[in-house]
C-alpha cells in the first residue's frame, strides 16, 4: 500500500493535518487504533475556549463531529481499528488490522499520537477502583458507566478540574482534591473557584499515604503536613499530568529533547514541525502538552510543511501561512509553554537523545 501522506492518530491534530493535506489534492491515509475518528475529543464534554478561528467555542465531542464532517469532503483512506507495529529497513511501516500485517509506504508521515496520563504511585495504588482521571472520564462520557460513588482526586491540573465538574454532574461525591505541591496546579481559576464555592476541600502539600481494601479500594489515608486522616472512598482518581507518547518516534529513530512544561521527553522538531528524520513530521500533544487550540494549529503547521515538501504549495505561500499560524499559536497557548516550545525548537540541532534505535 502506498500513500503520499500517512497520518498516524485521528485526534484533533491528525484530523486537521488530514484536512489540510487532502484539500491540496494529496493522497492521504489516516490510521487510528480506535473505531471512530476524534481521539480523546469524543469523551470531552467540557467547553473548549482556546480554539483558533474559524472555530467557535464548543464542546470536545462537538469539535470531533465538526472536524469529522469536514473530512467527508475529501477522498481519504481510513485505517480505523488498525495499529502500527513498527518500521522496516526499507522505510515502510508495518500495519495490523488484528488479522494480518501489511506494509505501507508513505512519502511523508505526520505522527500525531498524542499524550498519555502519568501514573502516581503509593502503597496499594494497583487496587481496582484506582485509575487515572482520564479513564474515569472515558467511563462516564463514552461508556455511560459510573465508576464509583465517592472519590478523592490526586492532582489538580486544569485537565482534572474539567473532569471533576463532569463527575459531580453524574452524582459522584468528590471528597477532596489532594495536591502534593504547595499550590493548586490548574490555571483556569474560574473552574477551581466554582469547586471551592460548592465546598469541595482542597488539600495542598498533601499526598496519599496508603490505600486499603480487599479486592477493591475501600479507604485511603491522606497525609497532610501536620496529620494523617482517613477517607472512605470506592474511587481514587490520579492526575499525574500528561506526557507525549513516544514509542513510534523512537522506532522511527527520531531524536529527543527534554522540556518539563512540555511533558518531559519530547521528539525534537524544527519550526516546520519536522522531526530529526526528514520525512517524519509531528503534530498535537506529541509536540508538548498544550491547550486544544494549539493542537489544531500544530496539525496545520505540520500539514503546511508537508504540502510544501510535496510541491502542492509554493514556498512563499507555505512560509506566509506558517508565519500566521505561528502567531496564532503564540496567542492561544500559555506563555511559559510557548517559550519552552521555542527553546525546544532551538535545541533541534543538538538533541539530548539521538541515534537511540540503531546503536
Amino acid at each position: 500500500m502506498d500513500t503520499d501522506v500517512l497520518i498516524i492518530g485521528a485526534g484533533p491534530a491528525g484530523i486537521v493535518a488530514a484536512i489540510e493535506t487532502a484539500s491540496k489534492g494529496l493522497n492521504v491515509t489516516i490510521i487510528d487504533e480506535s473505531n471512530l475518528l476524534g481521539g480523546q475529543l469524543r469523551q470531552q464534554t467540557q467547553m473548549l475556549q482556546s480554539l483558533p478561528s474559524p472555530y467557535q467555542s464548543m464542546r470536545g465531542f462537538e469539535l470531533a463531529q465538526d472536524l469529522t464532517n469536514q473530512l467527508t469532503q475529501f477522498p481519504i483512506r481510513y485505517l480505523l481499528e488498525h495499529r502500527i507495529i513498527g518500521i522496516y529497513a526499507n522505510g515502510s511501516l508495518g500495519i495490523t488490522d488484528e488479522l494480518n500485517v501489511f506494509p505501507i509506504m508513505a512519502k511523508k508521515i505526520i505522527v500525531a499520537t498524542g499524550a498519555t496520563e502519568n501514573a502516581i504511585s503509593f502503597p496499594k495504588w494497583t487496587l481496582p477502583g484506582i485509575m487515572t482521571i482520564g479513564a474515569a472520564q472515558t467511563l462516564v462520557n463514552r461508556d455511560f458507566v459510573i465508576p464509583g460513588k465517592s472519590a478523592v482526586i490526586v492532582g489538580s491540573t486544569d485537565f482534572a478540574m474539567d473532569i471533576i465538574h463532569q463527575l459531580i454532574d453524574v452524582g459522584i461525591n468528590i471528597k477532596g482534591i489532594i495536591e502534593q505541591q504547595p499550590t493548586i496546579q490548574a490555571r483556569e481559576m474560574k473552574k477551581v473557584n466554582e469547586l471551592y464555592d460548592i465546598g469541595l476541600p482542597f488539600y495542598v502539600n498533601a499526598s496519599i499515604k496508603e490505600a486499603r481494601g480487599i479486592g477493591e479500594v475501600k479507604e485511603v489515608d491522606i497525609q497532610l503536613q501536620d496529620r494523617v486522616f482517613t477517607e472512605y472512598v470506592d474511587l481514587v482518581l490520579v492526575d499525574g499530568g500528561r506526557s507525549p507518547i513516544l514509542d513510534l518516534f523512537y522506532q522511527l529513530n527520531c531524536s529527543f529533547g527534554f522540556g518539563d512544561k512540555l511533558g518531559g521527553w519530547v521528539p525534537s522538531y524544527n519550526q516546520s514541525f519536522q522531526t530529526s528524520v526528514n520525512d517524519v513530521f509531528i503534530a498535537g500533544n506529541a509536540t508538548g502538552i498544550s491547550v486544544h487550540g494549539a493542537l489544531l494549529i500544530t496539525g496545520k503547521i505540520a500539514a503546511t510543511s508537508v504540502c510544501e515538501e510535496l510541491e502542492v504549495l509554493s514556498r512563499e505561500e507555505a512560509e506566509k501561512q506558517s508565519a500566521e499560524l505561528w502567531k496564532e499559536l503564540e496567542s492561544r497557548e500559555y506563555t511559559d509553554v510557548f517559550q519552552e516550545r521555542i527553546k525546544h525548537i532551538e535545541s533541534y540541532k543538538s538533541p539530548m537523545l539521538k541515534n537511540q534505535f540503531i546503536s
Partner: protein
Amino acid sequence: MDKTKIICRCEEISYEEIEEVVGHGAKTFDDIKRLTRCGMGPCQAKTCTNLVAMVIHEQTGTPLSEIPLPRIRMPLSPIKLETLATNSTTFSTVKSVLDELELEEGRVK
C-alpha cells in the same frame, strides 16, 4: 515514604527492589529492566517509565533530562503471533534483532 509500594504493576516490582539495583550501579531504565524484569509485562513499560525515572532521580540525584528512555522495540504493542505471521507471501513481517546492527563482512561494525 513506604518503599514497599509497587512501581511496575505488571511485574510487581517495588520501589525498594529498584532502589537496591540502583545501589548496585543501575543508571538507566534498561539497566533496571535487565536486573529485575521491571517494564517487561503486558504494558511494556508504558505505565512505569516515568515512575522508574523518578526513583532513579530520587536515589542518584540525576536530573530527569539525563535519564534516557527505555529502548522501544518492535512490535510497539502486543500482537498475536498468528497475526504477526500474516497470510502474505510477498512480505516478511518478522524483523530480526540483527536488523538493528550494521554489519561489515559479517561482523558487527
